[in-house]
């Protein structure tokens, strides 16, 4: 047991161990943003589709208070991954600063991409966005979202149920331009972060192959663009009055 603890400590304190943890926790979010986007895009199917989807999401598994165990399990897992991702980022960054105590008077990069050079910056702003996003739509919509009709009646399996009006909440919020623009900017930063991240996971976890490298970067960039277009389409559609 103590041997196992010493070993885990050694792994967490090693450069590659930290990077692998960062990659693995980030990979969870690579998957999550896609599923989250698919859920959100149901807003284009109308109020009933997204409201019933949200209702079902929150009522799956044994009930804990207001919400189901499944959604809480997912939240705890995601929060843990976020904590790992931020912890490793801070620790790695600190070591990186210490590794170059004296900067160059004349600095120059040869092939570093913009996305790779601003990973810390995009990551920090995405973190701020996540906190705001959770307060806005998950934990305190009554304080952070623009006023909307809080519940709506929809029919599930033949019975009428009063449920949270997610559609009204999102539409009302994004009709206010500053919020919509903030969300779109956050999605651009997320795309920037993802375009470097997906390809980096392959490199960091030891799966790089020179013959497949160009393809991996293409997939990474395409995935980032897919998430950007999918997510940004919602505030954009509401802001332009396409959805109301």
């Amino acid at each position, binding site marked *: 047991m103590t041997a196992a603890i010493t070993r885990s400590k050694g792994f967490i304190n090693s*450069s590659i161990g930290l990077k692998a943890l960062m990659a693995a926790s980030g990979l969870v979010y690579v998957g999550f943003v896609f599923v989250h986007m698919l859920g959100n895009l149901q807003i284009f199917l109308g109020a009933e589709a997204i409201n019933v989807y949200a209702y079902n999401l929150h009522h799956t598994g044994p009930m804990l208070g207001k919400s189901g165990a499944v959604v809480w399990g997912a939240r705890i897992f995601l929060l843990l991954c976020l904590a790992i991702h931020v912890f490793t980022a801070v620790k790695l960054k600190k*070591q990186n600063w*210490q*590794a170059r105590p004296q900067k160059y008077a004349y600095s120059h*990069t040869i092939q570093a991409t913009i996305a790779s050079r601003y990973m810390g910056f995009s990551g920090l702003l995405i973190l701020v966005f996540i906190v705001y996003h959770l307060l806005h739509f998950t934990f305190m919509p009554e304080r952070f979202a623009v006023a909307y009709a809080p519940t709506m009646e929809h029919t599930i399996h033949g019975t009428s149920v009063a449920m949270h009006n997610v559609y009204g909440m999102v539409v009302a919020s994004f009709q206010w331009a500053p919020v919509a623009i903030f969300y779109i900017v956050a999605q651009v930063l997320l795309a920037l972060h993802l375009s470097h991240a997906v390809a980096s996971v392959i490199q960091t976890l*030891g799966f*790089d192959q020179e013959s497949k490298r160009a393809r991996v970067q293409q997939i990474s960039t395409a995935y980032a663009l897919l998430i950007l277009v999918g997510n940004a389409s919602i505030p954009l559609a509401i802001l332009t009055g396409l959805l109301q």
Partner: protein
Amino acid sequence: MSGGLNLTLRVWRQNGPGDKGRIEEYQAKDINPNKSFLEMLDVVNEGLITSGQDPIEFDHDCREGICGMCSLVINGNPHGPERGTTTCQLHMRSFSDGDVITIEPFRAGAFPVLKDLMVDRSAFDRVTQAGGYVSIRTGAAPDAHATPVGKENADAAFDAATCIGCGACVAACKNASAMLFVGAKVTHLSLLPQGQPEREERARNMVKQMDEEGFGNCTNQYECEAACPKEISRNVISNMNGDFLLASLRK
């Protein structure tokens, strides 16, 4: 002589490890464009010595691009602006008359400056001593075909083995990470049958030593690969990561 270059050099001067250091300006006059960068510095140093000043200290040895001793960060590029070239093989024809050239030492906490442009790179030796070898009994050399090695592995191992240990990867990395160097050493041996018995131990011990020396972490920008005078591929870093992660899982 016609066609000589007149250059302004902004050179890092530092009297010793404890000195704060500063950039000083020198004029390099009428430099033959066919001289190497180090020969240009020799000319400047001649002038400094005859006028009774301290010459600019810099590391060099073979001047054939193979020993890994020369260094210098020239206008932000380790070994200068040409790809796949060491400073000693960089020629002044790569510059234009009137250029201002900033010359700094390789910057890393793990490479302390000894004097001016000369840094202590013995951290690399300690990383190599931690596992960059194969333990084989001495004796008569075995027949060349006694241990078959696949052509692709032999080529990839050779590519990794071309690392001259100059430290340009560390100098180029914004985090002063040594992963291209350590990756090259790990990959070179892990691709060959002779390297298999110590493969996991090697990855673990070399990475441990690399971390202890205070090198930074990889940010996957691949500036190291671009600056490497031997054009070693970032693939060696991925290989090292794979070996290290497998070794950590198994032990």
